[in-house]
């Protein structure tokens, strides 16, 4: 409701601003535009001139509150204005980016006071430093190019039509003290579960007004909001190994979060699940039908598709030099080929604000490069039709479709999922999905099948767990795998379910989507934080954006899962201190 209102107001603002000069009363935009105009004249001796300059500033406010067992462990409020600057020399066809010498340095925060001259002053110095390093990069790139027999002729930057989108600036609206109380109470519910360790309830609310100007004439002022609530706990199994579980709620605005009572209930449920998990038997290697239910299906799609739907470009490097390994999308060579069953269609549409009443966190109007969001048909009746794209041209894909939303490598922005819709033309009910799983189990003669209800996505794995996962992956020689299941159950032929622990996927990628056997008729909406790190680890990276995946439950005839090769730890020597249960 609130969201719809914001969208309406935004539209009105665009219309209003179309008439009046949009930026004259916005000190930041004015300083950015004026300094940008002057920076076009930069030239050092006979070196290349800039052909493209872009300034982007996120006027950001953040509240972060953490609570543990009824006590607040941290509560902070911060204001900062991180700046992302680009100065490209050369031209669209060949510039200083996309080589191993291309680095995009980060700049500190700009002043939090709206001071026109100081803003220009900071931009002036940053642009100067960046121009000098870009001029050096293109020289090194040219030198390397001379040693390459058949260089890649792909252009370096996709041209776009300039746009002017001015929406009202946002402010973080959150009652910090009230939320501290909510988190205290919610985290206090864990005191009834003395077997759990490391429990945490954490709220992060970010509100940012994103401003962008570039020398093509694009001027942007749009809100970028993000709020997430994490509930996490771990437990020690009798064999000393550590199991963990989490719930993540991602929304755009704090007002969209569940009510305090529901959050406390969520903690109870999660805590009970985690306690059960510690007692559950360890699953051994498994090969057979796997049903991804609800959230797990959307998590699986989010994990494999963020990788498959984005093309990677190999940076130019002198032969014999240290050329970095680029892990290409598994779908890179499959355009117009079958990548899923023909009854599946996948598209991305950031312009949708909600799905059947559920707000979509992956909604935006314009991406971080100032390119208006476009609906993209990615898989049409099983055939691959396109990729998500930023302004980084990759092979024959030379146009942006408005999906550049995270800093990429070698001077580019990286393409990210907005609202990804996975639609099935043939569906069955949820209960029929389980019946089908059991039917396969019986037909193959297995003792049981596996249903997965939650994956560790975005991951909250501990460092130890991540290291162990990486080791197992390396040992088995697989390039890719899927985030581990948090909640996986054996399903016996009589329909009985049994929670198991210690499972990991073997090699798993979007290639496996060809083997989807069946989809349910109930799409699940997964809103999540996306930072582009491996396993989308929640605490990785400096940048994050939000995405949505709308997907029904999915059944696979046969998948391989392996027992996790964790060194079981030892149980603590000292018994845990007694907890005073909170009322």
């Amino acid at each position: 409701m609130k969201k719809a209102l914001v969208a309406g107001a935004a539209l009105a603002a665009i219309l209003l601003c179309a008439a009046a000069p949009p930026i004259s009363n916005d000190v930041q935009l004015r300083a950015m535009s004026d300094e940008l105009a002057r920076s076009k004249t930069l030239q050092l001796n006979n070196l290349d001139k800039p052909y493209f300059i872009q300034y982007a500033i996120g006027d950001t406010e953040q509240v972060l509150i953490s609570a543990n067992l009824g006590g607040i462990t941290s509560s902070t409020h911060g204001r900062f204005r991180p700046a992302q600057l680009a100065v490209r020399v050369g031209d669209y066809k060949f510039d200083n980016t996309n080589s191993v010498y291309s680095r995009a340095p980060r700049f500190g925060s700009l002043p939090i006071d709206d001071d026109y001259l100081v803003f220009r002053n900071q931009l002036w110095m940053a642009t100067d430093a960046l121009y000098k390093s870009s001029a050096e990069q293109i020289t090194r790139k040219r030198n390397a190019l001379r040693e390459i027999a058949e260089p890649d002729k792909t252009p370096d930057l996709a041209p776009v039509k300039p746009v002017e989108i001015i929406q009202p600036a946002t402010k973080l609206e959150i009652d910090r003290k009230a939320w501290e109380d909510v988190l205290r109470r919610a985290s206090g519910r864990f005191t009834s579960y003395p077997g759990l360790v490391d429990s945490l309830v954490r709220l992060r609310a970010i509100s940012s007004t994103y401003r962008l100007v570039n020398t093509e004439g694009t001027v942007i002022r749009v809100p970028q909001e993000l709020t997430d609530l994490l509930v996490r706990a771990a437990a020690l199994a009798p064999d000393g190994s550590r199991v963990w579980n989490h719930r993540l709620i991602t929304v755009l605005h704090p007002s969209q979060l569940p009510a305090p009572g529901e959050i406390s209930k969520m903690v109870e449920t999660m805590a009970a699940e985690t306690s059960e998990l510690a007692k559950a038997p360890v699953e051994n290697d498994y090969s057979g039908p796997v049903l991804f239910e609800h959230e797990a299906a959307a998590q699986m799609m989010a994990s494999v598709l963020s990788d498959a739907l984005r093309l990677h470009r190999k940076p130019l490097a002198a032969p014999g030099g240290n050329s970095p390994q680029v892990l290409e999308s598994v779908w890179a060579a499959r355009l117009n080929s079958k990548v899923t069953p023909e009854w599946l269609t996948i598209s991305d549409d950031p312009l949708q604000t909600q799905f059947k009443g559920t707000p979509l966190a992956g909604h935006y109007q314009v991406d971080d490069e100032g390119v208006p969001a476009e609906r993209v048909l990615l898989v049409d009746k099983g055939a691959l039709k396109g990729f998500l794209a930023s302004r980084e041209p990759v092979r024959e894909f030379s146009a942006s479709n408005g999906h550049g939303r995270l800093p990429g490598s070698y001077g580019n922005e990286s393409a990210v999922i907005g609202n990804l819709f996975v639609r099935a033309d043939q569906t069955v009910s949820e209960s029929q999905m389980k019946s089908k799983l059991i039917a396969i189990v019986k037909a193959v003669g297995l003792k049981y099948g596996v249903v997965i209800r939650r994956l560790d996505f975005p991951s909250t794995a501990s460092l130890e767990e991540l290291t162990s996962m990486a080791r197992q992956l390396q040992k088995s020689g697989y390039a890719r795998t899927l985030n581990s299941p948090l909640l996986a159950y054996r399903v016996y032929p009589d329909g009985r379910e049994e929670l198991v622990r210690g499972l990991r996927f073997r090699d798993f990628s979007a290639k496996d989507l060809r083997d989807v056997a069946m989809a349910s008729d109930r799409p699940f909406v997964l809103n999540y934080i996306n930072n582009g790190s491996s396993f989308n680890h929640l605490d990785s990276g400096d940048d994050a954006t939000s995405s949505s995946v709308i997907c029904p439950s999915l059944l696979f005839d046969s998948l391989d899962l392996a027992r996790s090769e964790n060194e079981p730890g030892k149980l603590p020597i000292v018994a845990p201190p007694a907890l005073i249960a909170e009322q």
Partner: protein
Amino acid sequence: MRGRAWIAALALLCATGELWAADAPIAGQPASLIEILSDELGREYAALKAKGEPPPYYMAYAVTDEQTDSESATLGALSSDSHNRARGFDTTIRIGSEKFDNYHPYKGSRIQFTRFSALSLDDDPNQIRRALWEESDRVYRLASRRLLQLKTDDQLLAEQSDKDADFSSEPAVQYSRLPETYRFDTERWADKVRAWSAEFKSHPKILGSGVSVRAQREIRGFVNTDGSKVQQGSNLIRVQMEGAAIAPDGMDLETFASFEAADPAHLPTDEVVRAKVREVANKLDGLIAAPPAEPIVCPAILSGRAAAVFFHEIFGHRVEGHRQKDISEGQTFTKMLGSKVLPDFVSVEFDPTLTSYQGTDLLGHYEYDDEGVKARPVKVVDAGVLKTFLLSRSPVGEFLHSNGHGRRQSGHEIVSRQSNLIVESSKKVSNQELRAELIAEIKRKSKPYGLYFEEVSSGYTTTGRRGLQAFTVVPLVVYRVYADGRPDELIRGVDIVGTPLASFQKIMATSDTPEVFNGYCGAESGQVPVSAVSPAILVSEIETQKKQNSQRKPPLLPRPESE
């Protein structure tokens, strides 16, 4: 309860406006925190002694609760506004015996057992007990593995690594005194730093500049299995200003100044701060126009503040006890006990019990060190002769007990660190006479000029607990002093060659006016607040060279001036 001193300070403040007012104590009662720590420590220790193989013989928890408020501005605009409170703890577990335990140094290497783990700000016993329990288990496992490894490794060494014991026994202590609480007036301080930083506006050649204020209240709670319980803390407010520029030949230049006080009433007036900002800006303009330094060996005067930094970096770090045990260290002074290391008219004392020196608050003050050992003055050099080292509970040679210098930043292991370094001289002359002696020395040695080091920088002069830069001293503001009556000439890019320790043995005389330098010192156990007090010193010889030049080109376009 408000202390009397605090009310007096308040009265003073009321005249100028209340920027830092006494407030109700922050949520929670620290006394109960100590009880929770002490209870859990007792429980853990008893259980680990009974069930641990091998059992621990000593344990300690140290809680650090830090409230920080800071405002920074550049050219009149606020650049950051931050308010944080964090509470966490460190865990120490010693296994084996005082003679040989898991902290035993092996081939110069030590390992870190502790890590800073968050604690509830609410004094919530559930969270606190659980956190202590989980962390104790982790540290105990690490410590027991290390001890077994050390025992094996030590057998394989030709000569056993270190004959000194690993830990000293010290009396149990009980102490509780907390600093006053404060309320930081964000708006007022923001306005002040805006106004001060705007002074740089009239210096277009200065590329980067800033003024910041940082107020910090730190409370430390400590319990150990000897039965010690210590609660103490400190308030600190720091105003800092800095400028950076590039000389026409591409040399990076910077100037810096700061004021520190344990009580804001002890800070200088706004006008004095403003004048200091102007001075920092003017000095930097002077440096931009100044000629670059040439290599020379000549006599020099180090100002009191410069000498204080030199003593801290060059001398102070070398008398830290743990360095004498570590074969990877230079061990400059290890075998020089009882020998002359400085001229006989110079003595050096470390005195953490001093709260201020001639009206300036000292950052290196504390009542008990981070191992719960009572602070005391330690005369390290008496009339030029090395008498002892700075000691934590790690014994060094004949020194079997701590002298209260075991310190750390939370999240690090404790080693011996400096406190308030005080240089005393019995050969004092006035500043004028010292200058006359310099000129005489220049003439005697037939040198073209001597040098006057007014300001120097080191790891220690930067506030932000940034990186480890100890042992380096970078001259910032240096003048050529001519013997023929020409005025002093500012030069830039002076670099000191070799170990300046040699210069210390060439001290000819000192001035009679000590100056104070306050700052943070970075080393193995993190950043700790320290002070150094020294008179200006005249050295017969110092060797300098020209600093490496970054060759950075100044900006191509002129500074944006107006709309």
